[in-house]
């Protein structure tokens, strides 16, 4: 560090003072605002002694004062429950606890402050009804305060508005609530913080308590009224010594809010004594300041990391004289990961947030599971799919019964299952059985769940997880202790909310090097400590100073008038913490966010601006701006290497009798839309995630229609023992539709007993619509009847496949192609080859030549297919009959002049016979297949980005 700076820290000074004041320290007590200071005090004191000594007792103020209180301190959560009991009594008809909770918290805070600041509640909670009252009330306040308060109540006169009534409704009960609440607690021998302090403040004087020891009060700044009273008492009665930590810079300048409280105390006859004549003036000694602006947060940590990396190599670097201050807890992770390895030891005063662990998510999912579960008469308890998935996927649950879990995950995704009956799961692992059963008591549910997890995992070297599990277990036990039997009543809705909030404060402490590591701490922990190098992140408004705790039932002006703290106090306190930290530092680095959004503040902290405008220090301003350049994405162009070709043999005749893979029309269409996609799907066989995509849905939709129609006609022809459909058969068919659909759905969701099948969510609507289609198709068949059904979903088995000879790489190979034909029927000499379509499909064709055109393939694919089927039929049955390709496409199905025939684009002439085109079509197929197998050509990406929109490989292509 730079020479000539006095390196002593405030705590060192305190140690020195205590040592010199007292021959032996066995009867001295030193009190700091918080516990941690004690540690450092001991260290400093040790430096000053050469043999063992009786060490002064060192306490935090609270620890020290408890000895004067008969009360046991009550936990906030518990307090709110107690408060609620009183509330119910005071306010005859009351909201439920969950509605009350957050208000309870607020009321409790108000009560805390009211006692901390020893406000006379009788006066505070006066309600004003008449002008007269208004004029007479508040005489005891000074003019200004009186005025402000009157202005508040004035607006209630002559008559009150609805919102004001609402306000009074609460206001009126606050006094009885306050009194009732304190009485209740006192009877239990318990009290909340403020209550304890206020009580001590009164008690000390009343009981003439005289501590037997020499008391030192060191490093305090903002005191509450009761603390002040207590301090004064000790000063007067037992000559307690107060040691302030201050600097002339803000102490002597009235405009500096940092000095507000100190100046105030300096005026006091008792406290005044303890202030120095000539306060040290360190802030204006020379120091270096930098302020680095970064967009958002992570960059701040990274930038700081680099600075520290350099500093850490300098000889004078002392980790323990270096502090990283995090006004925002959530910056812990980014900072942790940015501390360079040059720094070997680190000490962290904040804890590891349990909320971010995977255990937490597990618990939250579990709560959701219960919260969103439904009871139904037939199915029993059913669970909502989202939490179920989250849980089954959880790294600590999945392994318990992997097979079943994965089965269910697939099941849910493929079939859009929404509410799953608990009894369907059929897990055999007790923990899973427990997890997926309705449970009435949220807390117990979690505790037992944790216990179960622990029992399973604690001996499977998952220390970390096991530890987290235990911590939650511990915390929840505490909660249970507090809430006790009330838990049942709480219900998941509320407990989930509660748990989310509580969990935020669940932390696992770090074991570090409290005294000689680099220090990482929050703002408040810096109290009393001094460092040589200071790094502060999130140096933004709303972060330092932090937002004042919002929400109080006592409106601003009334608070002010009665001396309750207002945001100014908050600001002043943070100002003090800020400047105090600078006093003995040489090198200060600020990092701040520069992006303003609704919930992010991009404004540099006022304190930096103050320094800049007033201190005379220059602050070196920096902006983090990394060069930005987007690499263009390299094209993917797959060459037909021997390996690739080898894979492609799968579809060639005589390849391997066990593998009968054949190319389908959709394969060809894929190839025509994008060769690379073809490669991924049919050559590399990269399968899509089961994840249900929008357009996947569409496909499913189509398939179900196909099945339904097949079932409908199969069953009909079976029952009637004839494959001809007569016009008046239609009635039966129409009645059959719903059943057929049900079956089709059931098959798709492979539900064994179709009657037990109930469509859910969107599939209900799909069902309705599909029925509409089916009925319509049947209607058209009626008009067409009589006709004979020759085949339904006819495919390889019915001989609809071909080995098409092509020449590739010099030799001739047969490529296996097949297709599934939705329906083939015959009327007279005319055979229809029919395809059902549920999409946007067109029934126009230009020419077979045109089918090769990649630009228009999406429009033409329907034709390509139905021709393909017609071709297969022709290949099998030859020229015997006229072949009419037909398409039942939803788009036209409902049109007045619907015709199932396809027609030529220009002439609009309908196609009545495919045979003349068959040969040309075969050539077309051959050509495509030849190209596919041609080693010279490559699998490249489509030019038309539209094809990429729903393509599962779009991420790989970066499209």
């Amino acid at each position, binding site marked *: 560090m730079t020479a000539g700076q006095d390196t002593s820290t405030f705590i060192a000074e305190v140690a020195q003072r205590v040592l010199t004041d007292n021959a032996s320290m066995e009867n001295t007590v030193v009190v700091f605002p918080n516990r941690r200071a004690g540690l450092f005090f001991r260290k400093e004191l040790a430096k000053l002694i050469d043999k063992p000594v009786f060490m002064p007792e060192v306490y935090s103020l609270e620890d020290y004062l408890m000895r004067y209180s008969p009360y046991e301190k009550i936990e906030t959560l518990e307090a709110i429950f107690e408060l609620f009991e009183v509330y119910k009594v005071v306010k005859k008809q009351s909201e439920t606890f969950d509605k009350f909770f957050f208000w309870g918290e607020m009321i409790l805070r108000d009560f805390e402050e009211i006692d901390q600041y020893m406000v006379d509640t009788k006066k505070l909670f006066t309600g004003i009804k008449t002008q007269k009252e208004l004029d007479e009330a508040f005489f005891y306040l000074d003019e200004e305060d009186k005025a402000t308060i009157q202005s508040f109540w004035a*607006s209630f006169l002559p008559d009150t508005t609805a919102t004001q009534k609402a306000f009074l409704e609460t206001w009126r009960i606050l006094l009885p609530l306050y009194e009732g609440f304190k009485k209740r607690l006192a009877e239990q021998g318990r009290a909340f913080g403020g209550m304890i302090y206020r009580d001590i403040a009164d008690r000390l004087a009343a009981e003439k308590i005289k501590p037997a020891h020499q008391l030192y009060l060191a490093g305090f700044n903002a005191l509450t009224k009761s603390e002040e009273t207590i301090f004064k008492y000790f000063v007067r009665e037992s000559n307690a010594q107060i040691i302030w930590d201050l600097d002339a810079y803000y102490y002597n300048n009235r405009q500096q809010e940092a000095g507000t409280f100190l100046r105030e105390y300096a005026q006091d006859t008792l406290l005044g004594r303890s202030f120095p004549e000539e306060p040290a003036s360190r802030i204006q000694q020379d120091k270096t300041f930098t302020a680095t602006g970064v967009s958002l947060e992570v960059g701040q940590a990274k930038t700081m990391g680099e600075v520290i990396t350099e500093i850490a190599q300098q000889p004078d670097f002392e980790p323990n004289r270096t502090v990283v201050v995090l006004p925002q807890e959530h910056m812990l992770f980014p900072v942790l990961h940015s501390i360079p390895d040059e720094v070997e030891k680190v000490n962290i005063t904040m804890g590891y947030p349990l909320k971010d662990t995977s255990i937490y998510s597990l618990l939250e999912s579990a709560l959701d599971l219960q919260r969103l579960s439904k009871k139904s008469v037939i199915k029993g308890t059913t669970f909502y799919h989202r939490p179920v998935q989250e849980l089954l996927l959880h790294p600590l649950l999945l392994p318990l019964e992997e097979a079943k879990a994965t089965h269910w995950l697939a099941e849910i995704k493929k079939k859009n299952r929404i509410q799953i009956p608990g009894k369907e799961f059929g897990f055999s692992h007790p923990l899973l059985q427990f997890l997926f059963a309705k449970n009435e008591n949220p807390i117990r549910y979690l505790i037992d769940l944790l216990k179960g997890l622990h029992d399973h995992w604690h001996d499977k070297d998952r220390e970390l997880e096991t530890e987290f599990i235990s911590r939650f277990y511990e915390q929840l036990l505490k909660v249970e202790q507090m809430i006790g039997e009330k838990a049942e009543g709480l219900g998941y809705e509320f407990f989930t909310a509660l748990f989310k909030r509580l969990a935020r404060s669940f932390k696992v402490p770090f074991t570090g090097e409290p005294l000689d590591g680099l220090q990482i701490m929050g703002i408040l922990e810096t109290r009393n400590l001094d460092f040589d190098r200071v790094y502060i992140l999130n140096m933004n408004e709303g972060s330092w100073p932090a937002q004042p705790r919002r929400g109080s039932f006592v409106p601003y002006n009334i608070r002010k008038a009665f001396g309750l703290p207002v945001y100014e106090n908050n600001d002043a306190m943070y100002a003090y913490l800020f400047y105090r930290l600078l006093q003995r530092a040489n090198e200060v680095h600020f990092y701040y966010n520069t992006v303003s959004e609704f919930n992010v503040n991009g404004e540099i902290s006022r304190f930096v601006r103050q320094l800049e405008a007033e201190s005379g220090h220059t602050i070196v301003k920096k902006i983090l701006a990394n060069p930005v350049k987007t690499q263009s994405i390299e094209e993917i162009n797959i060459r037909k290497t021997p390996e690739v070709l080898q894979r492609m043999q799968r579809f060639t005749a005589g390849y391997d009798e066990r593998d009968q893979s054949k190319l389908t029309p959709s394969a060809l269409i894929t190839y025509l839309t994008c060769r690379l996609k073809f490669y991924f799907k049919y050559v590399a066989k990269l399968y899509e995630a089961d994840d249900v995509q929008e357009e996947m849905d569409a496909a499913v939709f189509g398939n179900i229609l196909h099945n339904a129609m097949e079932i409908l006609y199969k069953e009909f022809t079976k029952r009637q023992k004839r494959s001809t459909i007569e016009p008046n058969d239609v009635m039966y068919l129409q009645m059959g539709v719903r059943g057929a659909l049900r079956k089709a759905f059931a098959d798709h969701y492979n539900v064994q007993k179709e009657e037990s099948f109930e469509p859910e969510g969107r599939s209900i609507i799909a069902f309705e619509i599909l029925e509409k289609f089916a009925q319509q198709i049947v209607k058209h068949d009626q008009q067409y009847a009589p006709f004979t059904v020759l085949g339904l979903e006819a495919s390889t088995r019915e001989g609809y496949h071909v080995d098409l000879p092509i020449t590739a790489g010099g030799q001739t190979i047969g490529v296996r192609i097949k297709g599934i034909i939705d329906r083939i029927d015959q009327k007279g000499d005319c055979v229809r080859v029919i395809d059902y379509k549920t999409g946007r499909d067109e029934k126009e064709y230009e020419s077979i030549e045109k089918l090769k055109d990649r630009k228009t393939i999406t429009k033409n694919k329907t034709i390509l297919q139905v021709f393909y089927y017609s071709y297969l039929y022709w290949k099998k049955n030859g020229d015997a009959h006229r072949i009419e390709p037909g398409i039942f496409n939803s788009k036209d199905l409902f049109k007045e002049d619907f015709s199932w025939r396809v027609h030529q684009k220009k002439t609009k002439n309908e196609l009545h016979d495919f045979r003349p085109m068959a040969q040309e079509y075969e050539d077309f197929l051959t050509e495509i297949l030849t190209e596919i197998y041609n080693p010279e050509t490559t699998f490249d990406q489509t030019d038309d980005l539209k094809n990429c929109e729903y393509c599962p490989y779009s991420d*790989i292509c970066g499209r």
Partner: protein
Amino acid sequence: MSNQNFIIYKSSAGSGKTYTLAKSYLKLALAHKGRFKRVLGVTFTNKATEEMKQRIIKFLTLLKEGKEPALAAELCEDLGLDEATLRKKASYTLSDILHDYSRFAVVTIDSFFYQVIRSFAREMGLQGNFAIDLETEVAMQEVIDRMLSEIGEEEHKQLRTWLTQFAEERVEEGTNWDFRRDIATLAGEVLKDEFKAIAGKLTDLAENPERLIKLKKELDGTQYAFENRVKTICKTAFAVLEQYGLSVDSFKRKSGGPAGLFNKFAKQEFEITDTRRAAADNLDAWVNKKDEQKELLEQVLTDRILPLYNELIDYYDSKHVDYYSAVEVKRYFYTFGILTYITRYLQTYRDENDVMLISDLPDFLSKIIADSDTPYIYEKVGSRFDHYLIDEFQDTSTFQWNNFKPLVKNATDQGQFSMVVGDAKQSIYRFRGGDWRLLQHQVKYDIGEAMAEEANLDTNWRSCANIVAFNNSLFQQLQPLMEGNYFKDPSEELRQAMGEVFATFQDAVQQLPEGKPDNEGFVELSFLKEEKDAEEKFADLAIEFTIQKVEEMQTQGYELRDMAILVRTSREGRDIAKAFIERSNSKLAKPGMHYDVVSKEALFLTSSHVVQFIISVIKWLHDEKNQIELANWYATYAKYLTDDEVNESNLYLDLSQWQKNVPPEFIKKRNQLKSLPLYELVEELCRIFGLSRIREEYTYLQGFQDAVLDYSKNERGDIASFLLWWEEVRKNRSIIISDDNNAVKIITMHKSKGLEFPVVIIPFMNWSLDKQNNLADKILWCEGVSQAPFDEMPIIPLRYGSALENTHWADEYYKEKLRNLLDSLNLLYVALTRPEKALFMASPVGKLDKLSSISDLMLELVNFNKEWNAENGPWDEENQRLQIGTLPPPKKETSGGQEIALKNYFSHNWRTKVHLQMKDAVEQSEKYFNEKALLGITLHELLSHVRYADDAQQFANHELFTEVKKTVATLAEYFNPDWEVQTEVPILLPSGDFKRIDRINSQPDKIVLIDYKTGSPRSSDQKQMRGYMAIMKEIKDLPIEGLLLYLENQEIVKVEA
């Protein structure tokens, strides 16, 4: 003060709006100490807020240092101060603000409303801890999913039918049956102000569906009645013809002629050309002079066909409006019910999550405002304002203004100064409810004509003369340019409305500040012609044009950072950015030229390989069966993140290879990684894969990590829910780059508002004057009309489109069409007024006399300005290019703070430096609740309060009293008063170590140390005691004894030194 204490500044572009605002603020703040606390500055965006604050602080600093003479002079003038005093006041006020900064109230409308609502939360029956949900889309998705997941349930039968019908409509229109997206679009409606205004009426309707169903019937009735009647007439006609062996073709011009009308109508193509109308009573129109069948034809016509023909026409004329109305109403019929359901579900969502959508704020506030009087609101909020300075007023919505009105009025009525500033011509946020008419008329009226003063700020400090001139010539002449071209034959009302629109532009001719040269600046407008059936479409040409200009400007010495490319949609932005990026890595790139671009619209996190990679790995970790993800991250890794050669062609064939090529640590740690907190997971991936190798992507990586951090800050940090969230937001997460980055900015016109750039390029001057940012189908909420059945409904949702021209709501349609026009023009105005020195525009070749797109307008403009077309005028006919003025030299200016860059993007393993405190707490807490141990501890505690035998009494009724007495008995001799006793004595060693001795008994000649022990004796106990004794020796050099007392069995052990 003058009684005109409310000023309405109408400030056209570049006229120093912000300056005026800041000045007004300073005037107030400097007038009296602490006055600033009473001023509320209201801005449109958070960015603006911050800039305004900065500016005020900056001005004060400069004033204090006497560095801003111009402003100083004005202020001295206005405040009647001398320079010295002003400086003093400035200095004081500066500190005053800095030290009471929370009172420095420059805020966005939203945050102000939020503040008020908070202080009324209880009264409004809100949860105490409600929050604002910013990701409305995500919220909506959840709401919709929830809704769809429940349609199975009995009570939702009605919804089910609506949705089914909704879906059927889609299917019959041939669109995808799966309507989730359409619903999402629809859902957007419920957040709009228009909707909120009528939500009430809608709910009643939805409450009793029977009414809707009845209505539907009637509508069907109207529709089919019409269609059938028409059909019958046509059928009869055909029958007649057949009967005479004739057909439509028998008549003049066959189906093209009058007779064709029957064909058309039979095919339900209802349209009657004037020629056909004329033919109604004119045989010559039907029959050719020398047609040999002339007699017969005329015979049939007069007796049979013409009557039918006329009947058809008359019927059409009398009924078609009802017909089309019915059709149009049915189109969006079901949205009724669906929307109300969505509203309901949204409410549940709010309640369950204690959130408010940002769009809810105004509603809530209006409830508060409506009821309470101003002073009370101030009381509750805790700060009262006497002055309101509202910025961007043209974008304020009626909702918002109505909330401000009482507050502002209250202030002005008390003679306090307030002001609004805005520019109707730059009102481009109508889709967010912004309403320019507030600024234009309403506000004046609301405040009271007497109080309000209007001031025009029309000096353009920004743009050079030629640019100003060009804009003036365009916007002044809108009237002559557009008159009669946009609407076929507008009604009088419409004409007036249009006039008003033009007026707003006319009365804002921009002035040049004195002394500014009147011939500076450069404007180019090029019409790019698509060659017939050439691959190159306009878009490509325009992009090429843009790249060219950027190159030219560089040769002219301009920096990339001086240039901005303005686009209408982020899509366009993306295309341009893509083109530039490709160009920069292609051989077409000119040597010495740079092609770097930055753009919030284009530089999405997902366009970074590194980010891509991380996401993909995470997805894969989440579901290791997912082949595609494996392929994805492995390929990305192999191609971009390592140096080893890869044969991509085979890469995908055998993915199992990955194990051989990735860092072993990854394979080892895979499973731990899965249960790490999300943020840590990402850091670990960065570390393990050494992702800091591509420097140009740091910003992306950083941006992504920020997204992750932000997410896990509020949500649970598990992979599953993160991925869900990411899918929703990935599309619009882009990196944030400091403006100092030396690259061309690509920015949407909307976002460009309020900004200025030396050079502006507008590649796509081709947006439609009618449909704004082509919102697929916009809903118009129209009132019912007196005529049945349309009187059934108080309010009707209709799809905006020319189909409405033939309905009862033609006017509504025209009005909207006019508003659209205005939107387009305003957008144009904003765009054209950004540049300082040069403006380049590329437009397709427009059409004259048919105004449907900006390009048409531009062409009109060129035609209209005769002097441009004059001999050696700026218009170059051959190249279809307009070029005005010459390019001024660039001015070099230095950017703000010093720029630094990360040398590396390290991510370190912290677990080597510090550890978590491990104590398997389950066992622990078992202990914690295990009586015995507990007692041990408390007993210890109690004994420390017992110095002498009598002290024991204080615990007389403590459960452990007997235990205490036992001990006192066992050690009786040490509990008698002739000892001096200390308990729990802390001792410090020079080493810094520290011991605590349970009990020290001293007498002048000896000392006895006593330690209480729980549990059974251990040898270490004695060792420890000896240690104590040694230490004690150093403090007091006396004979020392040591005692150990085992509490359970009360056994005493003496320890020898």
